[in-house]
């Protein structure tokens, strides 16, 4: 498990709204509702949360969930410190006490028991029950917000979110931004040349049109940014597109050849 607590810094993380997601997030947060961000890998879910946390001036605790995350990892546990036991808050408990936004990234990866532990927090009760501490109940401080992200790709068939969890959430659906917006995002993030970015965007648009190709994912905004960064650091556009966009998508030889052909055709 990785948790990161970011404190309020001066510059807001860059986020370019695509639709009404900022308004919805703001209304839900002020109305003390929990938020579910849906969207494909690398479309900007995490960046969006960072941006919003900064906007509200609260701390953000991010938990990247995986299948071995237990409720104790989120809530806290007793540790042995010098022969004595000492309670250590988990990231969720810490957010509840301090009134920060807790962001559970890729929540479906976590075990069901840990997902259920957020239920009383996510609905009107806004309280956290620490069974390990004799059932201590913590009421969420002002400013606490719960945000989960969830990627409804084909993963969702493998691991779907329980209805009881989904019902407690306000859903914000994010997708890859339309080409013009994606263009400005990549320009802003990388400082690569406009035409090069345009080529990358065209390539990404083409890859996203592929159906039944055997690719598990398509080129995301994140990979576009990565390609732009590589160009800004001296690689040719072709090298960058191969390394950052085509390479990560597949290990399959035939698909790699196909992607290379696409790179050659879209990137000059």
């Amino acid at each position, binding site marked *: 498990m990785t948790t990161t607590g970011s404190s309020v810094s001066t510059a807001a993380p860059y986020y370019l709204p695509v639709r009404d997601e900022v308004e919805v997030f703001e209304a839900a947060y002020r109305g003390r509702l929990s938020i579910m961000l849906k969207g494909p890998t690398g479309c900007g879910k995490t960046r969006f949360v960072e941006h919003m946390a900064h906007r509200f001036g609260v701390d953000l605790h991010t938990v990247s969930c995986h299948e071995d995350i237990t409720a104790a990892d989120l809530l806290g546990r007793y540790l042995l410190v010098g022969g004595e036991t000492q309670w250590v808050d988990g990231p969720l408990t810490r957010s509840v006490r301090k009134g920060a936004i807790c962001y559970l990234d890729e929540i479906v990866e976590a075990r069901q028991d840990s997902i259920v532990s957020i239920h009383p927090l996510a609905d009107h009760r806004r309280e956290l029950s620490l069974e390990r501490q004799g059932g201590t109940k913590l009421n969420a401080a002002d400013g606490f917000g719960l945000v989960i992200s969830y990627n409804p790709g084909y993963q969702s068939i493998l691991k779907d979110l329980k209805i009881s969890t989904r019902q407690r959430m306000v859903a914000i659906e994010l997708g890859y931004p339309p080409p013009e917006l994606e263009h400005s995002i990549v320009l802003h993030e990388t400082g690569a040349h406009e035409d090069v970015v345009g080529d990358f965007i065209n390539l990404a648009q083409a890859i996203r049109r*592929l159906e039944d190709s055997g690719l598990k994912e398509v080129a995301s905004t994140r990979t576009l940014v990565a390609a732009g960064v590589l160009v800004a650091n001296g690689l040719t556009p072709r090298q960058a597109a191969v390394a950052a966009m085509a390479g990560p998508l597949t290990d399959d030889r035939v698909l790699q050849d196909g992607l290379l052909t696409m790179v050659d055709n879209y990137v000059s």
Partner: protein
Amino acid sequence: MSAVLSPEADEAPGPSPVELRSVAAGRLALLGGAIAGQKISVNIDDVDRPFSDGETVFLPAAFDDASQLLALVAQASLVAAGSLEPRVAVRLIGRASPARRYVSLELARALADPTIPIPNRHRAALRIWDGSPSSSVAESLDMALNAVGIPEAPAALGTIRPRKVMAGSGGSGLLSSMAKKPSDGRQKEMPVDELDDDEDSEESKILKLFSSPFQFENPLFKLMRNQLGMKRRPKPDGDDGGAELPVAGASAVTHVGKDAQLMAAPDDLDLNVIDHEAGDFHYPEWNGHKGTYREDWCAVGEFMPAEGEPDGEFHPVTDFTLRRRLASLGLAYERHRHQADGDGIDVHALVEFAVSKAMGETPDDHVYQTRLKTGHDLGVVVLLDASGSTAHRTNGAPIWNQHRQLAANLIGALEQVGDRVAAYGFNSRGRHHVRFLMIKDFEHRFDASAVRRLATLEPSGFTRIGAAVRHATHIAAEQSGTANRLVVVVSDGFAYDDGYHGRYAERDTRRALDEAVESGVGCMCVSIASDTRAEALERLWGSVSHVRLGEADELSRHVVPMFQSALNAAGSGTRDIRDRGPLAAAR
């Protein structure tokens, strides 16, 4: 980094021209698919000019790489723009020049569409018509036919081959419109060059229309056949003709004595009945119109087909990629004792450790036990559609051959990684005659005799998928003995039988799949180069994993997510397979 992806990194010395063509085709297919916005196969062949049937782009082998690329981009753009519309194609039959003007206009329309990602570097070459682009296919056709100074597209970009378009999957409804007016003067005026242009095609549907002994049969039959995707090559010997025509179309079902027809159907397999002492298996069928089950509606019998020699086109091969990917699926935890580390103490090992230490020996310090996902706990029933519709040819070979190859690859790979697998062919001739043709059951190996049985299966009859899925589910549930159970249907994904078609068949099939999933048996459908339309596949198989492949060896790319999602759908609610099955008991 680029070296990793470099296509020439490990090219075998001196691959044959055919291999080179297929490698090049594979490389181009992705680009074509991206531009077209749908799956595109590329076929580099001895054709004189590029063309497409809406799913496959044919490129001349004589072209150099750059020309092939440009032609591919042009043809894929036409597919993306929806230019290969059968209704248009029919009006371009025998009109080579308007067809080329139409290509120019449609390319201009594709270029103007911002959602079609045509690579910038090819845009100039595709821009033959500089005027304002037309707004629709119909307008382009109008302009092309009326020729107001529109330049013709150069031959290098390819043409529209009307009959290929009509024979492709987009051909719905087309044949019927021609059947209604077989003596339309326009069709008689076909210039000779257009006929030559098409001479490598399968027999012309129009010519067939003139020569057919059934010329005056009800056009509705043709409409049905066509819309249901049952386009077939007439067999030269014609002995199967009766079985290959729809025994009972929608209009015939109420009038024709269906049993008489079915009894008359020739039994073309030398069958040894293996299960008739036990009698047929009876299954209900879902009557979607009324929302009720028809109890004991279908009878399924298991048969042992005769063994024969594998024909030249069938070679079971080991698909190593497929095997490697399958190896990670359907695993169960097993306890491993005597480990150097682990998440628990192996008490027996610890006692031995203490004893040998007390005896002054060097003790074995492997005293831990751990649980690793190493046990194979997956039972698969492979169900191979052996109905007459799979004898339909795409690109020369019947899709049956590819389906059979895929089934053989899958069965072999599953057996080699240690999963339990059974395989049956199935077809039907009405609800009382659903036949399961045993290739192998769970108890026998996929040995030479199983291969011979598979080799001699001949596709015939129809497809009552619901009953087949129900029986396969029964076999998987009763005989696999594993916690994870799957039914893999290798089929063109098209349900059709006597009194079993359209919405009724779709609803029953979906019902059967739901029943299977609810009873803990995952289902999936794999088809190759099927010309069943994507929406039809989706309606039938939408609730379970399904994929339409271009080639048998593409399966390895899709197998992991498909199997996982099928297994997960069947096992949802139980996160841990430890809680089920015989391996749980063995713990």
